[in-house]
């Protein structure tokens, strides 16, 4: 199964890659290729040019930047899943990376690639939303920052422009605790999420001072669960508060039926996993 013909460039620097994208409107960025290549092989997507960013130096680290941690474009799922820094400041994202794909995919696919791909059932977008991540996009015209909540636009559509590369993400060090849990299509945590949720919670004097709760596999895109967040922020974080927040998991969300579950089942799973993610996040807060 071959993709359609395309031109291939493997720039040695970010500037060269950005030049190639600016000069070729039909070009597509490839990092690990774990999402893009299958689409190309099934001919669901046929870019005129592939810009392989895999050889650009300086993008493959997770670094401590005082008030945030930075995850570069070429950091692979396995690195995100096993990084002590990510575990400390965004456990939800680390868990989401650990539950992504399988061993071979986690060794090659990249966290930023998964985010840019914006699959409605991918794990790490929910983790990034819960972590309050900021996406850093570069083009020939410079860099811009996009809040995770504004980054996921629609099914397989991110806020990235065709000439932009997601060069990294920043995760603020905001304390609290976070977690991600899901039901995988192959059961347990295996494969894409039938449905899943990530949560970040910060408590102060017995009150939930702030929280972010995100869903995957449920709606038309990875998204924040606004109803659950409204219910949970300001609560006492008790079992009753968790149940009340979980009850509002799909408020304002267009729940999509797919091969893996009916609308009712997906909505049920959304409530179950919002509750589980909140419980685990609180235990870490």
């Amino acid at each position, binding site marked *: *199964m*071959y993709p359609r*013909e*395309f031109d291939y460039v493997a720039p040695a620097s970010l500037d060269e890659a950005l030049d190639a994208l600016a000069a070729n409107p039909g070009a597509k960025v490839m990092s690990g290729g*774990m999402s893009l*290549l299958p689409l*190309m092989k099934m001919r669901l997507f046929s870019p005129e040019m592939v810009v392989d960013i895999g050889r650009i130096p300086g993008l493959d680290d997770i670094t401590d930047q005082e008030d945030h941690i930075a995850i570069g474009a070429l950091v692979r799922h396995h690195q995100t899943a096993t990084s002590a820094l990510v575990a400390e400041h965004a456990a939800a994202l680390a868990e989401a990376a650990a539950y992504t794909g399988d*061993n*071979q995919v986690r060794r*090659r696919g990249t966290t930023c690639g998964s985010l840019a791909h914006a699959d409605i059932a991918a794990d790490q977008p929910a983790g990034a939303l819960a972590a309050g991540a900021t996406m850093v996009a570069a083009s020939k015209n410079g860099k811009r920052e996009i809040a995770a909540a504004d980054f996921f636009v629609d099914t397989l559509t991110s806020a990235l422009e065709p000439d932009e590369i997601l060069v990294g993400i920043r995760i603020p060090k905001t304390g609290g605790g976070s977690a991600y849990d899901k039901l995988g299509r192959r059961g347990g945590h295996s494969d894409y999420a039938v449905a899943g949720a990530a949560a970040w919670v910060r408590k102060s004097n017995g009150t939930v001072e702030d929280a972010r709760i995100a869903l995957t596999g449920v709606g038309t895109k990875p998204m924040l669960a606004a109803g659950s967040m409204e219910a949970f922020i300001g609560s006492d974080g008790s079992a009753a508060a968790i149940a009340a927040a979980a009850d509002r998991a799909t408020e304002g969300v267009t729940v999509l039926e797919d091969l893996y579950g009916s609308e009712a089942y997906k909505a049920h799973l959304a409530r179950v996993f919002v509750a589980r993610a909140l419980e685990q996040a609180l235990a870490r807060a």
Partner: protein
Amino acid sequence: MTVNGKAVSGSVEPRTLLVHFLREDLLLTGTHVGCESGYCGACTIHLDGVPTKSCMVLAAQADGCDVTTIEGLAKNGDLHPVQEGFWERHGLQCGFCTPGMIMSAAGILAENGSPTEAEIRHGLEGNLCRCTGYHNIVRAVEYAAAKMRGEEPAPPEWETDLV
């Protein structure tokens, strides 16, 4: 690139997948083409030492890399312990998934010499066996792990479970 310790070169179309370069240009047909969509893992090779699905990588992306295929696993005619384990513990039936299974398992054992059964099963999630022979595959990996630690592997279940 270097394949099984030998420098090789070739000129390919951008869309040539690594698995096709290995099989059709280098005639290393031990690496199998299965589902072609990233699920089955039959095409697993080691790319710079990392278990990788070679149908999910462009040959061009592997330019300059170090590739090991199933043909490169045995050293001086001696089977790799994982290969020996598959032989000794009946880890294959039809054999189609076997090269990928072995490359994946060798990757797991290179990082963790004493994996639990759960860790072996989790590590092999990216490899599908249509014969559903997973049980003996896990036993084969346990056999290899014991051998690589210099221990005597536990006897096969068919010698102990029936008495």
